[in-house]
């Protein structure tokens, strides 16, 4: 999944792109089973801002529920910028979601980091990828 997300993020470079993380969440673990793409409605500042199309959020939520899953987080890219939340990310974040940020260059996804809003700041979450090989 990391590779697929990275390819998608690089495809839109140097514009920011975004989407939803779908899976299951408990108090101590967020399991991302799949991801959904979404349109960035911020065309004027697409190089450093995103506004996720709420219709895409709604569609992803419905599809998730059909599979007994839910939206557990948001992913978006930072073209040529670190995979760390900006002040804008902080100001507009919702508690209760994981925020996966993908730092991209023109050639590759350089870094993946996930963050969760805790009180008034972000704390980094540990990312683990399940080995798909049996």
């Amino acid at each position, binding site marked *: 999944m990391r590779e697929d997300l990275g390819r998608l993020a690089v495809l839109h470079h140097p514009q920011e792109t975004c989407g939803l993380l779908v899976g299951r969440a408990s108090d101590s673990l967020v399991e991302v089973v799949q991801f959904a793409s979404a349109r960035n409605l911020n065309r004027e*500042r697409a190089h*450093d801002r995103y506004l996720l199309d*709420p219709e895409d959020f*709604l569609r992803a939520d419905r599809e998730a529920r059909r599979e007994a899953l839910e939206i557990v987080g948001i992913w978006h890219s930072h073209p040529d910028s670190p995979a760390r939340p900006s002040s804008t*990310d902080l100001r507009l974040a*919702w*508690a*209760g979601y994981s*925020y996966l940020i993908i730092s991209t260059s023109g050639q590759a996804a350089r870094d993946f980091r996930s963050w969760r809003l805790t009180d008034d700041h972000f704390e980094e979450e540990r990312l683990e990828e399940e080995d798909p090989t049996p």
Partner: protein
Amino acid sequence: MSQATVRIPAPLRGFTGGAAEVAARGGSVREVLRSVGAAHEGLERQILNESGEVREFVNLFLGDQNIRSLAGLDSPVEEGAVIHIVPAVAGGAS
């Protein structure tokens, strides 16, 4: 008055005891939200501002339609309607 279902996104489920859906009655979206707010303290304030309007960073969908493209909070609610509270998701590198 119609019976409707309101879908609650994860960031707001602390106000509903963790419930992802709540049932409510009302003839309009406004009435349904008021009904939900009466049953779940603090939730209505997350959705509506002090003037009783939908907050900038919240979207309300009645079925597939954003209520901003309908009659807003006065949009009539039919029996069995589903209202989705969709958080506005935004940010960026700078």
